[in-house]
């Protein structure tokens, strides 16, 4: 081998014209459409950039793979195979089959159907604290938002504006009309808001201190926040205005990772009002802890749905982030939302926005109570 390596002469041959032309076409395609990395500047605007890790991952057709994965898992399985197949899946990924609402495994027609299973009533008691977990999963990271940046993992941060979106002349927003396409969707009238799903909730539970927040504006005794402060960014993004923050509040964040075997529906973590959603079409990189520790701006690059609103302490947002195997995000009260659809990706940082003000004229949004099912992630 050493002799061959040392002594074998290198001979160069011209590529056939056809192969050369094909390579040029592929390279041109990659250059135009597959340069995946997004760099977020100081103002929170996302733009294409270049770290090699993202380029390598971005070269993979993850979105197409995700849709193919979804299609394969939507195929109807033979009835005799379902109990064996689903029990094997449950054993591999640690699913607790006793918690399922539908115990007959033959009822689930496909792996996708089984993956999106619902749970029995009462198997998840809802704690009576300010904030409960919205999903089954693992806490990846949590803390406070400092300087309008959210920490992905220790030492790696991304811009809050890029995560939640911001409208600016350089980043136009495409507003889509929203109607409650689902006739079963709960529309809360002004009279009913205090009795949601049989649970008495007062207006204060939903809106709480918002009125106090507004009253702080102009108060000379309250230190004014700089325009770039994280709190101001969050409140401004949520309310669409330059609301002044209160002096005793901060922005907090938390990231929950849902592993393949986990129950994949998500629920409301508190009593809050969702005012709008912003759908960011994007990549579908894996969001496993391994990748999250290595890929910068992961949560800004991936397809996600930012649900923005208010709770009794001010701004509140919940952002389901898709991944390769679970690229489809469903929101129960938003039947018009379509994620992981075929087509060319829009420019990074752009989003489609819909407002839920029609759900309740008094609350100006979709009210949710703790533990209420909001939607989920589907395979592919």
């Amino acid at each position, binding site marked *: 081998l050493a002799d061959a390596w040392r002594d074998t002469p290198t001979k160069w041959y011209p590529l056939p014209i056809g192969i050369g032309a094909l390579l040029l076409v592929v390279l041109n395609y990659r250059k135009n459409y597959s340069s995946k990395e997004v760099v977020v500047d100081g103002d929170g605007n996302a733009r294409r950039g270049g770290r090699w890790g993202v380029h390598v991952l971005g070269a993979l057709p993850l979105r197409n793979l995700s849709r193919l994965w979804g299609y394969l898992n939507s195929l109807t399985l033979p009835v005799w195979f379902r109990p064996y197949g689903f029990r094997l899946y449950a054993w591999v990924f640690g699913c607790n089959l006793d918690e399922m609402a539908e115990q007959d495994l033959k009822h689930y027609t496909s792996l996708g159907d089984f993956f999106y299973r619902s749970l029995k009533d009462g198997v998840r008691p*809802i704690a009576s604290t300010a904030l409960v977990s919205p*999903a089954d999963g693992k*806490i990846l990271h949590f803390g406070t938002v400092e300087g309008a940046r*959210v920490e992905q993992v220790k030492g790696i941060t991304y811009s809050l504006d890029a995560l939640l979106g911001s409208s600016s002349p350089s980043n136009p927003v495409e507003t889509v009309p929203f109607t409650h396409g689902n006739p079963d969707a709960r529309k809360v009238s002004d009279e009913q808001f205090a009795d949601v799903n049989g649970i008495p909730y007062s207006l204060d539970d939903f809106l709480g201190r918002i009125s106090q927040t507004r009253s702080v504006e102009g108060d000379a005794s309250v230190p004014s926040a700089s325009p770039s402060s994280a709190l101001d960014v969050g409140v401004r993004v949520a309310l669409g205005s330059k609301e002044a923050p209160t002096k005793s509040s901060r922005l907090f964040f938390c990231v929950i990772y849902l592993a393949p075997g986990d129950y994949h529906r998500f629920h409301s973590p508190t009593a809050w009002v969702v005012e709008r959603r912003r759908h960011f079409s994007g990549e579908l990189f894996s969001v496993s802890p391994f990748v999250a520790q290595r890929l910068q701006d992961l949560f800004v690059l991936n397809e996600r749905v930012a649900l923005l609103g208010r709770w009794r302490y001010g701004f509140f947002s*919940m952002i389901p982030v898709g991944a390769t195997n679970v690229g489809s995000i469903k929101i129960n009260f938003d039947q018009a939302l379509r994620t992981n659809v075929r087509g060319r990706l829009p420019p990074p940082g752009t989003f489609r926005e819909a407002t839920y003000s029609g759900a309740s004229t008094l609350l100006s949004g979709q009210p949710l109570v703790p533990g209420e099912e909001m939607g989920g992630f589907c395979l592919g």
Partner: protein
Amino acid sequence: SSIVLVFEAPDDFVWKVHAGQKVKYGEVMGD
């Protein structure tokens, strides 16, 4: 898949979880 929560809360908001902890929906996260 992942879920990111970003919210405003009083300074005395206390997390009741730790990094790496497995949680079920409805479990306490903070108060």
